[in-house]
């Protein structure tokens, strides 16, 4: 079964309730599995979460799969055959001794699934298992799920935002909540906002720029009024490139050159040597995790930090539909609201160049549409945009130029 719903509709909470992980106080009504409360049926359920890094427990792959079996008191002689069978079922390409920290996100997620199916659950719960992965890794995980479901006689509940890829895995789809406009559906009508006018001056150039761990040298120019999409598999150095272009880290090889149009007299120096306040007024960086960038205790204070007048800040708040949340703590916002706030904080200093790392990651359809419109407006106002993203639909909607980093 595929479980859909808007952000905040309670998909993850429902899965936690089914897994018997919810505290009594957080729950009204009952969740019954085979007629008994979910909390008593925990041995029959297995759950895989979104973040691969915080669900692997041991440092060797085989030990990690064995962890759940140990906890259930399975005798040692029985543990290792079941570990090997589970690893084979998800197509895990390495041996038991493989270091779990050395695995890619897709491999880690397959290992997490192996750790759950080794327990032979009657109910398999998957909470956005491919959300953190590049398209290739996500495909491998979906193949692993399909293969594992053939081998075990189990019910599966899958939560995913993007339905197109998930549909072949399920027999039935359930939408949680009334807010169906926000739900991704197969073949949803998406906005298309390509640039209508030709791009303007060059803002920033990468000149034989070296990325850590890769032999490849990057040559690219970011132009005014143009959205440059940076794509490529996990580990290809996309986020490293975003930090370099953003003037946040020093290049280990090659150069980042700002044009006088972007930086005026500071153009003589590379962006990583600009003072922080001047950098923020020229290049805005939006990190993948919005929480990394919050430094004050209210939404309004976050924007005032940019040094703009309160009137400009209030305008920005209403433009990004954050006005009702002006006094809320940034850490208490929903995922979509946090994303809008992190874009707003970068805009508060009015930079002419914006660099965004996975801006649409994990957003429901409504927030996704809003972000596309917002980013396209910013681009049409004459700003330069760099979008580091796995999201092919985002690139289709507003990407004017593409830079694809190869697997290293």
């Amino acid at each position, binding site marked *: 079964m595929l479980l859909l719903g808007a952000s905040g509709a309670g998909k993850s909470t429902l899965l936690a309730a089914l897994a018997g992980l919810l505290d009594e106080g957080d729950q009204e009504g009952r969740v019954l599995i085979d007629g008994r409360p979910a909390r008593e049926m925990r041995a029959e359920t297995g759950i895989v979460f979104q973040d691969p*890094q915080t669900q692997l*427990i041991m440092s060797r792959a085989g030990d990690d799969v064995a*962890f759940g079996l*140990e906890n*259930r008191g399975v005798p040692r002689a029985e543990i290792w055959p079941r570990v090997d069978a589970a690893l084979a079922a998800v197509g895990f390409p390495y041996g038991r001794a493989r270091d779990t920290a050395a695995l890619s996100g897709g491999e880690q997620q397959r290992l997490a699934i192996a750790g759950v199916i080794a327990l032979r659950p009657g109910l398999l719960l998957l909470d956005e298992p491919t959300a953190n992965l590049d398209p290739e890794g996500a495909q491998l995980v979906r193949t692993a799920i399909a293969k594992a479901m053939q081998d075990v006689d189990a019910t599966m509940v899958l939560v995913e935002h993007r339905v197109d890829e998930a549909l072949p895995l399920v027999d039935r789809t359930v939408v949680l909540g009334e807010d169906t406009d926000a739900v991704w559906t197969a073949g949803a009508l998406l906005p298309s906002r390509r640039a209508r006018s030709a791009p303007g001056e060059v803002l920033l150039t990468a000149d034989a720029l070296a990325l850590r761990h890769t032999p490849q040298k990057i040559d690219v120019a970011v132009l005014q009024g143009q959205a440059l999409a940076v794509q490529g598999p996990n580990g290809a150095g996309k986020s490293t490139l975003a930090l370099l272009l953003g003037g946040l880290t020093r290049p280990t090889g090659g150069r980042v050159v700002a044009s006088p149009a972007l930086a005026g007299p500071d153009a003589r120096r590379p962006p990583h040597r600009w*003072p922080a306040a001047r950098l923020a*007024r020229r290049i805005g960086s939006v990190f993948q*995790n919005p929480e990394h960038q919050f430094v004050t205790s209210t939404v309004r204070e976050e924007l005032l930090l940019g040094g703009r007048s309160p009137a400009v800040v209030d305008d920005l708040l209403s433009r990004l539909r954050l006005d009702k949340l002006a006094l809320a703590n940034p850490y208490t916002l929903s995922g979509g609201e946090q994303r809008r706030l992190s874009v707003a904080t970068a805009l508060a200093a009015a930079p002419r160049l914006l660099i965004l790392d996975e801006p649409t990651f994990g957003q429901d359809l409504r927030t996704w549409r809003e972000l596309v419109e917002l980013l396209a407006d910013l681009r049409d106002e004459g700003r330069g945009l760099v979008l580091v993203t796995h999201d092919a639909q985002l690139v289709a909607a507003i990407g004017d130029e593409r830079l694809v980093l190869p697997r290293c």
Partner: protein
Amino acid sequence: MLTVPNSWLARRDATAKLLAAALLTAAVLTSIDPLTSGLVAGVLVLVLPLTGVPLKVLLQRGWPILASAGGIFVFTVLLGAREGPVLAHVAGLDVRENAVGYALRLVAIGLPGFVVFATIDPTDLADSLIAHLRVPPRFAIGALAALRLVPLLIDEYRLLRLARRARGIAAGWNPLPLFFSTLFGLLVGAIRRGIRLATAMEARGFDREVLRTTARETHFGWSDASVVVAGLLLAAAVILVKFAHP
């Protein structure tokens, strides 16, 4: 993270190695003369091939110990008490026994722990502590899982610093406010990660009352006992030398 060599010592039981190192360190702590400290340091360098830790790695990773020992040596020569036998004259300064003694002592105290931890795999340590010292699995495995998150925290701290620069915030004349704001962000992130990890462990039955089995065998044999005996003998030798040369 340290990579554990596949050597004779690395294959020995973790508890045995910890015990041997503890005995040896305790014995060295009781003495300050250069002879006993030199004895311990010398024996450990001689058995280095058994540990599988290359001398180069020892120097690379153990340099803080050597640098501290060098510092202690220099300062004791310059400022230390002018008593005890003079061993050498260097550049018009008297190098006395106490300077050599302090420096060697630091090396002798640091080296056993260093060698032992360089040859212990954290997973083996947790297994061994559970099997032989009856440490509760909830504590040992929990600490092991938490240890895996440490490199993530280091990465996160770096990202938080960069994110603050992107917001236009620099340290200025007083770096403390920025440091504490970064630390707060790190703490929030660490707690979230910790909760997610704990939930994932709970979901796989870690909180259960069922008697836990262990997938990996922990064997304590004669060769493991010999590590403890070797530590004990060396510790006894240190104490004997100390009383023979008061």
